[in-house]
């Protein structure tokens, strides 16, 4: 009986040592260490609408910013201020500010203009007051939307809000052949509601 016990303890010790060593020591390959930082995704964190009133030199801007990307600190959006009865020439600029230095996304969209289109929709009290017309075209002569004009009809002032806003949506077409100039894609890269004030 005693011999049995010794043998048993020997076996147990053997298994124990093997198991413990292999689990605790293991290999070094799986060392998690620091997360890889060199392969980050491209984001859009900033969209700037720039409007120049026709015949006037001064530019007005409204900016959407979400500098840390999705999540974290909440995004901010400016109200765009226009005058009733005026006409503007506009430009859209996009950037990734989560990188250092920030990346200009406008050029990337311009390069891939055949696969993108902006859709700008005035909502609430702005419907019928703003006419937004895209002026730049892609290789198939379909609208893109980095350049546009805005015409504001004369009338009562409007205070910009979540309801009284222009929805700016950037559709991404994959494949590019699915772009037809009128239908938004099933994959949206940007969707922002810019509140708009109309002053007299």
């Amino acid at each position: 009986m005693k011999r049995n016990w010794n043998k048993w303890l020997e076996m147990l010790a053997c298994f124990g040592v093997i198991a413990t060593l292999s689990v605790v020591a293991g290999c070094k390959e799986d060392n998690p260490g620091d997360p890889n930082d060199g392969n980050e995704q491209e984001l859009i964190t900033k969209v700037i609408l720039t409007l120049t009133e026709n015949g006037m030199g001064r530019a007005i801007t409204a900016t959407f910013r979400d500098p840390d990307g999705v999540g974290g600190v909440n995004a901010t959006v400016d109200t765009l201020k226009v005058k009733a009865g005026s006409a503007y020439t506009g430009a859209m600029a996009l950037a990734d500010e989560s990188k250092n230095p920030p990346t200009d996304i406008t050029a990337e969209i311009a390069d891939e203009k055949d696969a993108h289109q902006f859709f700008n929709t005035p909502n609430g009290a702005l419907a019928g007051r703003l006419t937004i017309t895209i002026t730049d075209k892609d290789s198939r002569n379909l609208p893109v939307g980095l350049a546009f004009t805005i015409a504001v009809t004369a009338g009562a002032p409007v205070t910009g809000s979540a309801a009284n806003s222009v929805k700016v949506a950037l559709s991404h077409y994959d494949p590019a052949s699915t772009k037809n100039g009128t239908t938004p894609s099933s994959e949206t890269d940007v969707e922002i509601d810019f509140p708009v004030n109309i002053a007299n």
Partner: protein
Amino acid sequence: MKTLSSSKLFLLWASLSFIAASHAGIWTAGKIRFKGRVFDAATKAPLPGATIFFPALQKGAVSNQNGEFNIDGLEKGTYKVACQFIGYTTIELTLSLSKDTEQNFNLKPKTLEGSEVTVTGERDPLKDAKQAVTVLSSEELDKMRGQTLGETLKEIPGVTTLQTGPSIAKPVIRGLHSQRILVLNAGVPQEGQQWGGEHAPEIDPFAPARIEVLKGAAGVEYGVGAIGGVIRIIPCELPASGIDGELTLNAFSNNRQGAGSLLFEGANLLFSGLGWRMQGSLRKAGDAHAPKFNLQNTGFEEGDYSGTLGFQKSRGGVQLIYSHFGTTLGIYRGAHIGNVSDLLHAIERGEPASNTDFTYDVKGPKQEISHNLLSLKADYHLGSLGKLEMQYGWQQNNRQEFDAHKPFSSEPPTAPSFDLTLTTYTADFSLRHAPVKNVFGKIGFTGMRQGNVQTGTILLIPNFRAYSGGAYLRESWTNGALTLEAGGRYDYRWIKAFILENRPEAEEKNVVNRLHEYRNLSGVAGLIYQFAPEWSIAANAGTAWRPPSLNELYSNGVHHGTAQFEIGNLNLQNERSFSLDATLRHVSARHRFELSAYDNRFDHFIYLYPEPEPTLTIRGAFPTFRYLQAEARLRGLEVSAARQINRFFNLGVTAALVRGNNLDDHAPLYQMPADRLRLHADFNLPKVSVFSEVHIEATATLVGKQKRFLPNADYADPPPGYVLSDLLFHTRIALGTLPVRLNFGVRNLFNVSYRDYLSRYRYFIDDAGRDFVLRLHIPVFTKFSEVHHETQLE
């Protein structure tokens, strides 16, 4: 096969009536004495409580504390005698009794242990009326080869799947899935990337194995992963002699899938006691079809292989298994959306945005997954002490997910958007002690070390390193008709997460280490009582727990395809369950009935709670969900009944109900399976022209609409209920000298358009339509091995 099971059935019935009879003390007198002892064949220890029984005479005895038995008053003659005991393989002998006879029985332990909570599988319930085991045998699985693990398990009442298209199915047991279900592959807890509903278990559907499902918590034996249930993939035993091989070929019409598997196994190749097996499988499928449209980019390509070496001697054995699983899975293109407006448009449209043609090409979005497993198992019989078992496992899981295209471009991505490698080492050892009087038990220790490294562009979960350890003890007492069980376990888990802090104002990004520690106890108590011949009841009460998983702690981002912003919660505590479970069973020659009821209460149940304010992002506002904890309760019923009408014809029905409630919010839990009813009829004919063993099976599955949901918390209400019909024709034919098994079936016979509530694509597309399936099993060496067997017998 049929005769064998009915003889077993008779034996069971007979031994039960014997137990009843022995209590009543009805005996007839004779002259001959039959005596002997019963031993555990493995440990050589005497076995008390075993039944020795002469079915023809309705006579028997139960072995005493020294394993001795004694049956007096037998008449001369030739009889069958059976020796059986819970957890051991029954021995049947034919004896000629002319004088007092002494006979010892060495019972072999069954390789599987009974567990506290159990299911009895659908078709093979006869052998385990008392003990809770069984499920889908290798032969039953053959009828479903080529389908995913999840699909295969759907037949069991109480098991459903969380489906992401035709190729990804995650098993859901009694309403619980993912981190609450443990998959045990060849004895090693499968450690894959379980962070999302679209991450399915990495298991070769052709692996030569038996599958067991334990419904409900099994935390004492299996630790913190097993709060909702356990799926055990148990490799078939290695052959003891000869050489054998099998070729399996499958064809599926719906996604034009072709699949094949080749297996060779044998024994005593180099020296006696050495068994080996090699197996490999390939599957390739293109786009699946719903009745009305093509499901773009839902194809897949999978290649798996495994090798096993085993050495067995009388006192112990060693087994080495290596397996590789590798797959490339397409993700339905239309589920790759940008924002909530896109999702709402897709729901409104009700079908894909554009028609596409069938293709085998898998493009982005896609997943590339590999899983490698190395398992080394050893057991050793320590004589009167019991049996020592040790298992060591190494696993490496790599998951790469690719987007549809580079950002703002039509180019396919050059690098995966996330790439995770999870490496896990596990060690278990346990001692199953020799019975002490009528008490059996097991003491065990487990340890695990894990590391996760990621190199993608999206931080799905942080890198982490984890250690865990546990110790458990389980004991059971039995006197034949009544078995009582109790057990307890302690677990400890240590996790260090390496978090990349995203602060744009900082020049360099900071890596912060955060340490989490979790420890707690699990416990279980249960009984199985054979209260009448053919009737038994099993009841169980237990408590189990699990620590929050990394994604529940650290998620922070939009889930593609569901357009939800999910936020982790660092303050999550351990989730704990208190479960009550009872099963009533009836097994007789022509009837089978099983009713299970359960009531699981959870403290700190982890779930996603919709935040009142959406998250504003550059892609618009996303509904936001945060991981919170609440008291929850999941209750349910499962019924299964079967009746043999005559020799040729069987009828059966199964049904399952689950009710999940968040007790703090007085609201239904999200994503609970809808009520299900399954009816089946099968016809068995011995021989029809060249076809032998003809088996025809018709099944109808009725799934209700989930009416219990939180209004306005989801984009679309649960889809309506549906009825699916399947037909299966199974037979054996001679192909030259080879006995080929042929299996032809139709799934979704009436090509019904439907969406399951637990399908992650239900917002976008219907589930797959009609599918014709052909399966062939061709033994390669049958003749050869027969010859081999004969020489061995000589």
